[in-house]
């Protein structure tokens, strides 16, 4: 009996170690490739630790007109912008849907949050036509504007505010508080964990955002990081064997995912909770 148990433990440990390695090993390859020189990347056999640390990847992207620093800033501006507007406007809408009673409320609510169920690709084609007419093609603001107010966030704030006892709101109103005061000074402080989830989710989601920026953005100076990575992925190096610039791809990718991984490791428990509870994907 004890023997069988021990074998079970060993098998379990082996399975877990394989799972951990399947995640960590690819990351290790990425990190070392990001700092190798181009000739070292193509050497046979491959090196498993860079002989010399270089920033050739970064320079290569510059040579092809891309710019990782600029893309990083673009991504940051886009993600922070969309997160902040969503936080504000979705709170307003979520509050209205949670607290007020009015005709056709449920119908309007479903009409709004159904956007979350649809795939983006179905909206991207008409969006493109609209933006071309508005003169917002190749414009970061044109990317952001279609998603300034997140459907999932409205749904989430509504369900969160619905759980707050009505007494708090009534008491504040009797004291003469205005409705915006109730929302931002009484409800918001009470829903700090939810606001954290909203900020993380919306930030990750915009950081990941790909299809629409890919369609709308044309000049490399306006690219966000994922678009720059996709662009670098399909630059083929010169020479007899035309291969992608693995070093450049790795460098841009490292800059792209590092903030997410660090953020995840810091607030790990929170992350998992938020993802699992909501089933939302980044």
């Amino acid at each position, binding site marked *: 009996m004890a023997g069988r148990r021990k074998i079970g433990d060993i*098998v379990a440990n082996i*399975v*877990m170690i394989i*799972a*951990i390695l*399947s995640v960590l090993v*690819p*990351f290790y*390859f990425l990190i070392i490739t990001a700092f190798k020189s181009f000739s070292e990347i*193509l050497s*046979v056999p491959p090196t498993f630790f860079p002989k010399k640390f270089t920033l050739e990847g970064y320079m290569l992207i510059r040579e092809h007109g891309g710019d990782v620093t600029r893309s990083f800033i673009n991504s940051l501006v886009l993600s922070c912008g969309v997160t902040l507007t969503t936080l504000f*406007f979705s709170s*307003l809408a979520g509050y*209205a849907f949670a607290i*007020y*009673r*009015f005709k056709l409320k449920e119908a*309007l609510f479903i*009409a*709004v949050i159904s*956007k979350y*169920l649809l*795939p983006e*690709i*179905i*909206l991207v*084609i*008409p*969006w*493109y*036509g*609209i933006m*071309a007419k508005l003169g917002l093609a190749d414009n970061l603001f044109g990317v952001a504007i279609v*998603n300034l*107010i997140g459907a999932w966030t409205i749904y989430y704030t509504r369900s969160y505010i619905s759980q707050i006892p*009505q007494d708090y709101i009534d008491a504040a109103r009797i004291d003469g508080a205005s409705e*915006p005061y109730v929302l931002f000074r009484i409800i918001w402080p009470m829903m700090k964990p939810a606001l954290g989830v909203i900020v993380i989710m919306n930030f990750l989601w915009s*950081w*990941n955002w*790909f*299809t629409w920026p890919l369609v709308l953005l044309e000049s490399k100076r306006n690219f966000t990081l*994922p678009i720059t*990575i*996709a662009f670098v992925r399909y630059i083929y190096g010169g020479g007899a064997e035309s*291969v*992608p610039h*693995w070093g450049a*791809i*790795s460098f841009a*990718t490292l800059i792209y*995912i590092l903030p997410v*991984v660090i953020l*995840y*490791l810091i607030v790990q428990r929170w992350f*998992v909770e938020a*993802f*699992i509870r909501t*089933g939302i*994907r*980044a």
Partner: protein
Amino acid sequence: MSKLHGNSPYIIFFLLPTVALYTFFYYYPLALDFYYSFTDWDLLSSPKFVGLENYIKLFSDSVFIKSIKLTLIYVTTVLLGSILIGLVLSYVMDRPTKLAALTRIIVFIPYVIPDVGAAAIWTVMFAPGPSGYVNYILSRIGLGTYSWFEDPNLAFPMIIAYSIWKYFGFCTLVLYSGMKAIPKDYIEAAKVDGASGFDIYTRVILPLLRPILIFIISTNLMYCWFVFASVYTLTKGGPGTATMIMGMYIYGQAFESMKAGLATAAAIINTAVILSLVIFLHVRGYKGGLYGR
């Protein structure tokens, strides 16, 4: 309860931004979609009305048919594969060791990082030729070198393998939290009745996890069906049309072949089918008491 009349200015003030934005960037585009799907439109000139032609063309387009088949295979194998790994791993890591705690942190990382980043990592790891990391390791143990994402026969299985790697952490942790929620008495009772560990798992735990499985499938179905960013980064649908799954097909028709009318028709058909499936699963989920909180 709030009175409607006293607050009505605020209802309008609070909802107006949302209603305005959603009218202009959600319902108006959706209406345009239906219009475009009956037109021949190259994204630049004005659309020409062609009736049902796009819908008829689609079903005689061998690439569209292939795309449906590939997408069906992709969705079923990816969901099944990551759920199976999730079932094994969530069971295995349900123990109070440090290694188990570490596993719970690490396996979630592929799911958290952005698609394009995760896909780029795989392209580097599976670089073709003898200088690729995986190729080198395989050739050292005598298994040869491969072109992976550039091989027409390997590219599609590789995309499936990549996607399972991307999702298994999510399935694992969702199933793990589901298992944690099962009352201990159920398992104790089965033990008292003399059930073996395997019996307890298949007869007690697994049936109780059923609603969780429905949850995983229904929340990921739409995303998997239209998976795009990863495929674009890995293969762009190639080589040839070897990995032309639905998201890639629609994007390619619209923005590379400039057949936006055809692309909207394809998008509408696919969305309608998958959306009904998702709603069906959700309704079933409710019946099973999934959201019984």
